[in-house]
């Protein structure tokens, strides 16, 4: 045991000697939380809109003003002909063009209807949908004001909506759990796989192998410091999201921390497994960063809900551990549900941990 503690101490020294790594280790989560919180938003603000006004009357002017003063849009240009639409959309600053037909105002009065077309840049589907919806809402609003109170009949069915768990519809509720999941698996897998392959690549592992330490102790000793550091990281992220975004843990914090420990353990054993199959650090880094980053972001349900994907992905994403942890953490943190709601996911993570450890033990070579 004393030998083992000495070894753990040596590993800690390795880590603390390189203060830059340590700064980054705690800096990444903090920076990400802030970026996601403040920079990444799917709302529209000041989206560029151009107008092609073939009528140029009082009504079209009013609609144009209403759109520009809404705060969502800013005018980029007034176009003169249909041929300009393609030119301006290709520049990329303009997201949509609003076209008023000829004699717009007159038709509206004499025939009782006139038409507007909204041509949106579909190369960015999300923005295109949002911009079209907002524009439609503004124009519809104008229309109902125009109609006046005399003719408007209030709708018979009125619906009231309650947004559960997240009444303010904030993005934080989605990205804080996502970032914890992403950061933990990447950092844990990366760190462990790199520190073990490093000893392999430089041959220092031989020194360890001939020492009286058992292979299991070596691995455990390598992993313990990262376990502790990652756990501190979890607490840090939770504190940060609580202080900056006022996002408290709704459920039992002990349960959340226990689940995080399980997840860290799983990520560390994944890192060990990666180190047993790679011979150089480059290879280990390649697998744990290039190989895992995008699938973790995209297939875990972090940003894109799995249920919206084609059916196969339901099965495919089942082999990615982050998927389960996101469910667990969302349940405990945001919904405040207990262990009863997450025991299945917990079991899956535990089984995965055992599989990774089992495979690593089988692959770990005592001789070089």
């Amino acid at each position, binding site marked *: 045991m004393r030998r083992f503690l000495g070894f753990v101490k040596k590993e800690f020294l390795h880590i603390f000697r390189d203060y830059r790594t340590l700064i980054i280790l705690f800096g990444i989560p903090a920076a990400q939380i802030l970026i996601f919180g403040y920079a990444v938003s799917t709302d529209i603000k000041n989206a560029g809109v151009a107008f092609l006004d073939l009528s140029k009357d009082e009504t079209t002017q009013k609609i144009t003003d209403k759109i520009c003063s809404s705060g969502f849009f800013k005018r980029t240009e007034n176009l003169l002909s249909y041929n300009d639409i393609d030119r301006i959309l290709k520049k990329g600053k303009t997201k949509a063009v609003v076209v008023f037909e000829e004699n717009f105002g007159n038709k509206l009065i004499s025939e009782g209807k006139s038409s507007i077309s909204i041509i949106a840049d*579909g190369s960015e589907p999300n923005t295109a949908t949002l911009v079209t919806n907002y524009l439609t809402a503004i124009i519809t609003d104008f229309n109902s004001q125009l109609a006046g109170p005399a003719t408007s009949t209030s709708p018979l069915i009125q619906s009231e909506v309650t947004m559960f768990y997240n009444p303010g519809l904030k993005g934080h509720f989605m990205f804080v759990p996502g970032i914890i999941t992403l950061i933990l698996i990447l950092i844990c897998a990366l760190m462990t796989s790199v520190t073990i392959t490093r000893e392999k690549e430089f041959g220092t592992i031989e020194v360890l192998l001939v020492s009286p330490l058992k292979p299991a102790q070596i691995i455990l000793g390598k992993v313990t410091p990262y376990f502790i550091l990652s756990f501190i990281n979890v607490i840090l992220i939770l504190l940060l999201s609580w202080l900056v975004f006022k996002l408290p843990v709704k459920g039992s914090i002990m349960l959340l921390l226990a689940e995080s420990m399980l997840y860290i353990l799983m990520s560390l054993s994944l890192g060990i497994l990666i180190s047993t199959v790679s011979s150089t650090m480059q290879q280990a880094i390649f697998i744990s960063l290039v190989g895992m980053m995008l699938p973790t972001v995209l297939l875990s349900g972090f940003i894109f809900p799995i249920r919206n994907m084609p059916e196969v992905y339901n099965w495919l994403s089942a082999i990615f551990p982050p998927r389960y942890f996101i469910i667990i953490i969302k349940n405990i943190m945001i919904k405040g549900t207990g262990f009863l709601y997450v025991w299945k996911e917990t079991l899956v993570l535990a089984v995965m941990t055992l599989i990774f450890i089992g495979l690593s033990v089988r692959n770990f070579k005592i001789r070089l």
Partner: protein
Amino acid sequence: MRTILYLIRKEFIQIFRNKFIGRAIFAVPIVQLLILVPAVTFEIKSVRLAIIDRDMTSESRGLINKLEGSGFFEVKYSPFSDGEANNLIAGDKCDVTLQIPSGFGKNIGTGTAARIMVSANAVNASTAMLSWAYLNGVIRDYNSVVMEENINTNPVTPAPRIMIENRYWYNEMLNYKHYMLPGILGILVTAIGFLLAGLNLVREKEVGTIEQINVTPVRKYQFIIAKMVPFIIIGIIDLAVGMVLGKILFDVPFEGSIALLFLGATIFLIAILGLALFISTLSGTQQQFMFIAFFFMIIFILMSGIFTPYESMPGWAQAFNKVNPVAYLMRINRMVMLKGSTIQDISTELWSLLIIAVTFTFFAVRRYRKTA
């Protein structure tokens, strides 16, 4: 010039000597592209609905039928109490619950307003908003049907109407695959070039082989160029293969000039590799480099506008994106591939990227010390 060619050859041998890396450079992006592109979508396939119908009249059933008929909603459960409905949301068995109070049908019949209560699981705010918008649309439709039925008892004069029609250019069906392919491809190319080029240089430092170069008359710029060129070539090949696959499998259109796209990609690669080499001249170990690279990559990618619109970012984020090469690549890729933008349309992006590329490369050459 001959020196550079020899050095480049050496780099290629070094890269491909590691069998795993040699294969992974091409296999990983292709496999990820094939798997990830179809997965990424904001579209909602179906919303799972639980309905508490306390009314049980033909009107309430009419509304439920309308919801089921819309194609968006699947009525999964019909719980009897609020508690039961809340449990369904907590257990993630349904997304939205709808409560129709008793008296709903009667109120509609007499022309007084009837209330219904909707609760949505809003952990994912954007999905919740979309589901709510769909639901509202169906309710509005149902409303107008009911009003038309009532029209005899309660006549309304038609108001002037503005008809709105909308069209999406360049991607009429709003196919997400067309949007995501250029983006994901860009990220993969970035990740590979950035990591491997940087690691390559630091590794030589860490293992000590850089000494052997340092004692030769190879100039500093020659060394940096030789470290860069192989990864530019690899990046371009990855890009080309990815695009061909996109065209064949996902039918992603290619409207613009291929040469223009590759020009943009080459300048981008120089910029990103310049930065990678600059960082690696500053770091002593591969581990250090990796963390700094990881930090930059995550920030570059998340802020680049790959998932969220660039315009909705606050001012400081847009200012940061002026030096973010990935943000330029995203725009160039998408504009040229999907819209057929020409060199005039993207000249600002190209020039900015070029300035970034020259600056980073200059720093890398400056910082690289031949003396240990």
